[in-house]
């Protein structure tokens, strides 16, 4: 079985995000970028499937500008065999990403498509679902556990009510949640070997994909600063304050 894993270049989770003064987006100038942490979990799962003999080949794919190749190199250091870089310089909406990933899926014909449940930059949590819908294949999102048995996958999903176990036919799109695994440390020899692994570069035009219209970001603003609290002396005062705010 081939496993396809999509990875996204995002602002590193340790970075304190700064919104540009004119509200046109987030400041990326000189900011540390990394692989989306949920995609790392997806990568780890794919590599474990290969190590267990369930998968024969792991292919990483990303959509982004020149620099996104770095995240593919990280994926190759994890243990992907080869990588595909869909070079796009503009921001890509979830639907456009799904169209691109559908085209890559159709070209590669993997038995399983793993990705992070969402990217920590926009937190859209849409691409996995849209990709599966466009492909007309099953989806198992928020995976906390994944077992492959022949052409079926059993996935324990982390849902609001607790854990839900479902079985899906393969190929399917499975999106990784936080507790699926703990990604490995990249070993230094693997980091260096990744430089020599093949990366294929394609454009949206090569894949015959057009950007989906309909989504424009009009303004980006930082969350409001937390206002200072007040201290109350008695329970009566507390109840009055809550009533005043319409909370009780």
């Amino acid at each position: 079985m081939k496993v396809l894993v999509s990875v996204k270049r995002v602002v590193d989770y340790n970075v304190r995000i700064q919104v540009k003064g004119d509200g046109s987006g987030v400041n990326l100038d000189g900011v540390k970028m990394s692989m989306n942490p949920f995609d790392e979990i997806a990568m780890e799962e794919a590599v474990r499937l290969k190590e267990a003999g369930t998968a024969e080949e792991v292919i990483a794919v990303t959509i982004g500008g020149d620099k996104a190749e770095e995240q593919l190199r990280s994926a190759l250091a994890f243990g992907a065999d080869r990588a595909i870089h869909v070079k796009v310089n503009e921001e890509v909406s979830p639907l456009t990403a799904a169209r691109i990933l559908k085209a890559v899926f159709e070209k590669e014909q993997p038995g399983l498509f793993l990705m992070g449940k969402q990217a920590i930059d926009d937190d859209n949590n849409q691409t996995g679902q849209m990709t599966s819908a466009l492909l007309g294949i099953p989806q198992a999102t928020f995976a906390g556990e994944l077992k492959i048995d022949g052409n079926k996958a059993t996935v324990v999903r982390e849902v609001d009510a607790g854990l839900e176990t479902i079985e899906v036919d393969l190929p399917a799109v499975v999106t990784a949640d936080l507790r699926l695994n703990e990604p490995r440390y990249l070993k230094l020899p693997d980091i260096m070997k990744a430089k020599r692994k093949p990366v294929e570069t394609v454009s949206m035009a090569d894949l015959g994909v057009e950007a989906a219209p309909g989504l424009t970001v009009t303004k980006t603003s930082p969350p409001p600063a937390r206002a200072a609290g007040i201290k109350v002396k008695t329970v009566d005062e507390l109840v009055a304050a809550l009533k005043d705010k319409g909370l009780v």
Partner: protein
Amino acid sequence: MSFFTHEHHEIRRTAERFVEQHINPHVEQWEREGLFPAHEVFKGLGDLGMLGITKPEEYGGLGLDYSYQVAFAEAIGTCTCGGIPMAIGVQTDMATPALARFGSDELKKEYLAPAIAGDLVACIAVSEPGAGSDVAGIKTTAKRVGDDYVINGQKMWITNGTQGDWACLLANTGDEADRHGNKSLIVVPLDAAGIQRETKLDKLGQRSSDTAIIFLDNVKVPARNLIGQEGKGFSYQMQQFQEERLFLSASILKAMDRVFDDTVEYTRQRNIFGKSVLDNQYVHFTLAELKTELEAARALIYRATEDMLEGRDVTLAASMAKLKTARLSRQLTDVCMQFWGGQGYMWESSPAQFYRDLRLHSIGGGADEVMMQIISKHLGILPGKKK
């Protein structure tokens, strides 16, 4: 920095993650106990390929240039104490460079490969009670008897000394009159008969790193344990010092960053006389200048590294980097502790931790005064020496 590629950042990331998950949670305990488990920590680092970054691939290294080692040294400096990064530096940049450069294949297989793998812990045994920075003045002797060297003497302030498996030891093998041409580096297994190293030294800082005094009484080691040629030990050691000094300099940058960042945070929330400590111009101006000094020191290390990559002699630049970082670490930790006040004087505050730990850097690996002597010599301003 221009030479920091994606791979450098990945190496840093792995090293920082290892420190954060496998070292820092235990630092408090290891500091208290006066010992960190070197074999366990080094094995973890070795498994990730971090102990042989610049070493030849045939012995398990990565064969990379020194810029990758600088990235690693900086990253390992995210440790919340100074002792463990130094102990790691002993393994990678003090005890092993000469062996890798001049040792025989047999000797490298026996001692270098397991040091890179993290299976053996190494020490560098140069200093003695009567000679530290004055390397040429050592008294330990190694006499050739048949197929062996018989070693007698004492080695002092030996990092990793109580736990180490072998030492790269400098001894006099020739005529005493020829101070620079009578020395040799010899690999000494520390379980050899005649070695006594029970004494763990009680130090001001670097508490989690064990430091020993090693007595050698008629210690026999095979003559094939000689690194390179007899009589070349002093010059090998001088070369080996360059890596040591660059590593030491790079490894304390993040410690200074940590003390600096903690100080900004603490002084920002600590109020005195109706405003935050940080809001006093004296405080934020001083911090602004310290940060400038820190970035200048960092730039000097990168510059020395670039010189090394280009094959130039880095004695001058590495000595300057060591002098600058050591002095700055004393200034920075002292000033920051002052800004903290009482809380900074507490044993476990980061200014106090590094005030103790980094104080060593002006003394070990060649004291500040030795650095100034080397720099003076290179500048041609040392009395009696004309360039």
